[in-house]
């Protein structure tokens, strides 16, 4: 589908060339490698970098994996970007992913007058992939300037996300969901391990990631099974950079990426190495002596090496990611039995995408090797290998976006574990928008416009052993927008009321236990977990004027899950089991204010999530009933100061009835960062000094696993000013 802007922008005068930048509609990340063709002519250009200057004319923008868009450069006359050449205008063309996660489409300016006030012009290639969906995106550049040092930290800084970490592994909860209900995707490819159900973000270096987007709520269409609580969508990076970083407790990191062209081929490659001792001190307040003791973590080190690359050809795209890591499996603070245990991991991901006629075909494969080593008891050494493959076709048929695919998973592990399964799906999605043909006289007088959008989709998943599982998704939103010329709320404004209903399914993972463990349990047959209803009603508002962008969104949410698959630890006879009902009720809101001198983002949530089983009401483990966070950045010249505060209320650490004795206390942490940008002749240099947990708060994200106290880090990122 195309969006033609010429008629709308005809009133705006233009001359000469226009700088066109192509971005991903879901994340806002720049997209290199787009192919631009003059409509009605034979001119064609491949944009090696995301932006290029184009002469006047109508251009069709195509890129593998995205729906094409058309832009009329001749009609564009205003919206000069600061980094554009003098007299040059900038148009940002956002392309909607064909097969990736829907939602998070960057909004088009509300009115023509608003277009003139924005520093960039955003063109949406579709009326909206999925309206009524909350989202928040954090770009890697912003994260680096805020002192964040890894993909885990990038994602953890997003609103709607609660996180916890132990033994080098991080679990994410989105909008009160269990960590297994959160799907993590990289360019649309689900990264969740088919064996454990969760994804390890620690293996992804920031240099390989352009942005992270959180999409709270069930998403049966984009991410498929496993996305009952939400999606964290990662976007591959597209820029050259080199970063070195050092920090407290032996943290050392170097990573870099480069890209270039060979004929019509765009290539990109990079590498990263990270190591840390993580031997931080902590106060043990739960020792058997009853007295506080100052101790230091041991066997908590972590080393990871990554290689990543991409090839983008006119007729296809290939992405490769390979990582290798080793870490100590330190146990809880008062358990020393694991002081020598080690885990070795190796992961590989390969994804290719080619257009076949009007259909985009994507194939992906993943492999994971785990080796558990117990030097004190070598007889307990264990290893496991997991393989997963997927094939998917996506296309457009009339008003529908259609997808179909299939794949298989398998695990082999020490002790004769050998499990496998196949799966397939079909999905159809429709979305549309309608502008009110006539408004009220007052609206016409005030220049107020109304737009209604709706989307619907259905997906059928068939997984061997779990049957056929249908899921539906419905969404609608009503928007009013206009421009107020005076008063404190002057500027382009927008108000949105929306509602969304979705279902989702999560099939049992192949082996719901950390299978590198020497412990072997009998796994019960499990029914698929089903989100019967994930509902959301939201209000949003935004205000834009030259020196201010304000966005607010608040939502009431509810989720009802049947047969929730929950791990209840125990001995031989117990394993994950189906809990008849899990219900979440809650509300969340986030606010973002951007000005030339600084930004403020704030988030607050209240989630009441509980499992109900056999007369027990069990609060969902590690979901804080109350949570809030805020990040403020102040800019002055080349300097930026960032303060990030996070607060979590009490949260249960067991799958048992509410009992204060089994809850982690409330905690608030403060992270600070100072960044300076230095413009060199050929590159931009970003230097950051960060202080995590600046108030040295003693806390735990997982019971028994202390978090570091105050920790410093310094980082330097070099980004070439001119890309090939």
């Amino acid at each position, binding site marked *: 589908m195309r969006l033609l802007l010429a008629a709308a922008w005809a009133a705006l005068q233009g001359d000469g060339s226009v700088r066109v930048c192509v971005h991903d509609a879901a994340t806002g990340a720049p997209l290199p490698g787009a192919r631009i063709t003059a409509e009605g002519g034979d001119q064609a250009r491949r944009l090696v970098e995301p932006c290029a200057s184009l002469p006047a004319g109508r251009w069709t923008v195509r890129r593998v994996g995205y729906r094409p868009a058309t832009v009329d450069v001749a009609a564009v006359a205003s919206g000069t970007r600061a980094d554009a050449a003098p007299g040059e205008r900038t148009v940002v063309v956002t392309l909607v992913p064909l097969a990736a996660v829907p939602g998070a489409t960057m909004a088009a300016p509300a009115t023509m007058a608003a277009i003139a006030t924005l520093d960039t012009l955003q063109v949406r290639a579709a009326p909206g992939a999925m309206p009524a969906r909350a989202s928040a995106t954090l770009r890697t550049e912003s994260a680096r300037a805020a002192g964040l040092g890894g993909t885990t930290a990038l994602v953890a800084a997003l609103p709607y996300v609660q996180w916890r970490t132990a033994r080098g592994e991080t679990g994410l909860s989105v909008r009160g969901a269990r960590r297994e209900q959160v799907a993590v995707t990289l360019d649309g490819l689900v990264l969740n391990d088919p064996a454990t159900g969760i994804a390890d973000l620690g293996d992804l270096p920031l240099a390989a990631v352009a942005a992270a987007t959180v999409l709270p709520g069930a998403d049966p269409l984009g991410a498929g099974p496993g996305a009952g609580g939400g999606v964290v969508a990662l976007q591959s990076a597209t820029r050259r950079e080199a970063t070195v970083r050092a920090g407290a407790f032996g943290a050392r990191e170097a990573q870099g990426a480069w890209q270039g062209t060979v004929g019509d081929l765009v290539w990109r490659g990079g590498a990263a190495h990270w190591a840390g001792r993580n031997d931080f001190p902590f106060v043990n307040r739960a020792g058997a002596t009853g007295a506080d003791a100052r101790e230091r973590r041991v066997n908590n080190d972590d080393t990871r090496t990554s290689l990543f690359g991409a090839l983008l050809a006119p007729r296809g795209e290939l992405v490769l990611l390979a990582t290798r890591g080793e870490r100590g499996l330190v146990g809880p603070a008062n358990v020393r039995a694991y002081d020598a245990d080690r885990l070795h991991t190796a992961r590989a991901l390969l994804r290719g995408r080619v257009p076949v006629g009007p259909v985009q075909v994507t194939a992906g494969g993943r492999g994971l090797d785990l080796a558990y080593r117990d030097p004190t008891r070598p007889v307990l050494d264990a290893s496991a290998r997991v393989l997963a493959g997927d094939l998917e076709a996506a296309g457009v048929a009339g008003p529908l976006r259609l997808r179909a695919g299939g794949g298989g998973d398998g695990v082999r592990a020490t002790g004769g*574990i050998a499990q496998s399964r196949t799966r397939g799906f079909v999905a159809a999605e429709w979305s549309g928008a309608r502008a009110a043909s006539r408004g009220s006289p007052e609206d016409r007088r005030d220049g107020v416009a109304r737009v209604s959008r709706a989307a619907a989709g259905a997906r059928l998943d068939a997984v061997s052993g779990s049957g056929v599982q249908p899921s539906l998704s419905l969404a609608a939103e009503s928007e009013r927008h206009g421009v107020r010329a005076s008063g404190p709320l002057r500027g382009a404004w927008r108000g949105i009321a929306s509602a969304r209903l979705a279902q989702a399914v999560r099939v049992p993972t192949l082996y719901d236990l950390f299978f590198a463990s020497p412990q072997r349990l009998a796994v019960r047959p499990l029914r698929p977990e089903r989100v019967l209803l994930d509902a959301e009603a939201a209000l949003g508002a935004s205000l834009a004027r030259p020196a201010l962008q304000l966005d607010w969104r608040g939502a009431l949410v509810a989720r009802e899950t049947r047969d929730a698959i929950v791990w209840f630890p125990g001995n031989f006879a117990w394993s994950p089991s189906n809990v008849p009902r899990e219900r979440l009720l809650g509300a969340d809101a986030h606010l973002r204010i951007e000005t030339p001198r600084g930004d403020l983002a704030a988030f607050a949530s209240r989630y009441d999530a509980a499992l109900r089983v056999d007369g027990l009401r069990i609060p969902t483990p590690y979901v804080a009933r109350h949570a809030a966070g805020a990040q403020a950045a102040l800019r002055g010249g080349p300097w930026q100061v960032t303060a990030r505060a996070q607060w979590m209320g009490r949260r249960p650490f067991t*799958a048992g*009835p509410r009992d204060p004795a089994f809850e982690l206390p409330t905690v608030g942490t403060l992270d600070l960062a100072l960044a300076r940008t230095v413009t060199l002749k050929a590159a931009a240099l970003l230097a950051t000094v960060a202080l995590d947990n600046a108030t040295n708060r003693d806390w735990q994200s997982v*019971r028994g696993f202390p978090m570091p106290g105050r920790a410093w880090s310094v980082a330097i990122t070099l980004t070439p000013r001119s890309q090939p």
Partner: protein
Amino acid sequence: MTRSPFRSRSVAVAVPAACLSALSLLTACGEDALGPADRPQRGAVVLDGFVQPGLTLVPDSGTATTRIAFGPPTEFDGGDLVVENDTALAVSSRGAGDLLYVASLASGAVRRVQMPRASNPARARLLRGSGGQALIGVPLRDSGAVALVRLDAAGASTITRVANAGRCPTDVVRYGDATWVVDANASCVTNYAVEGPVRLIRIPDQGTSRDTLVLSGLRGSAASIEVAGDVAYVAAGGEANFASFPFTLIAPGAVARVDLRNRRVLSQRAMPGGSYGASLKRGRDGFLYVSLYEDLATFTPRVLQLRADDLSLVTASGQGPYRALTDEQGAPVTCGSAVADAVGRLHCIRNGAGSATSLLVFSPLGQLVRRVPAGQGGVDLALR
């Protein structure tokens, strides 16, 4: 540090009075939010072994229960509960911090005592020193030793180790002028592989000699002992391979009846073919109750009732070896950690969905007469 009387190996037979001493020490540690009046004086005590470790106290009637929390699940993984009057004992293994838990059922106070690191405690027993002081015996599987713990009123603990107590000591009792240790004879320090038959090791109070009685029909890394007069009942859970799927049974559990005075085995009984485990309790009705799993595929909990004098099975005609238990409608019911009260009512626990635990009480004829929620993650049961 106070010198322990166990250094001189002068230990007397445990008597109930020792429990009172232990209780007086426990109450010095303070009380939790519930007052003593809230806690039942009689009834069942369920050990919640996982999820939210602790004790659930169930009175003889009604459904109101009270809880005594032990601590986080990372620091408790015990499966055996010992209750003497108002004192409850349990331990956590090396994988959960090598801890001894001592709880006062009257006050709700809990004391945690750090056992030697990586010693891998198996269970705890109340013993008594020759001076009348309360002592707690803790077999240390990975140390091949027994820890004798003395708690003082100031909250301090004194630990004395009795070394050379076998390859993998799993239980300890006092009889005569000696400490008797059940040695599972397994590689508990690594993977609990059985190395040979269970042994009963006598450690005299004087000298360094050891008398070993090999119980040739008993194998398993989980072995326990109950003493009644001069007779000891030793149970071993059997041997299985849990390192690969499907699990395979090597030998079922067994129970031996031992004459402690003459140090000889009187009789033995193997558990039914295909079964695994043998958790032995002496009922107040004079019978022995063995809880086990019917097989390694379904892990269905089952109960055997044995006569104490000859280990013969008490069975109903045509019902097979296991104790026939039925609900109000006559449908079969299974449960574990069974023990009977003085009138022969069988008490046992069963974990349902979400590991919610129920205490089940059956009439002497095996019909369910009471079902009451009893916490979550129940792994053992004792009667007060």
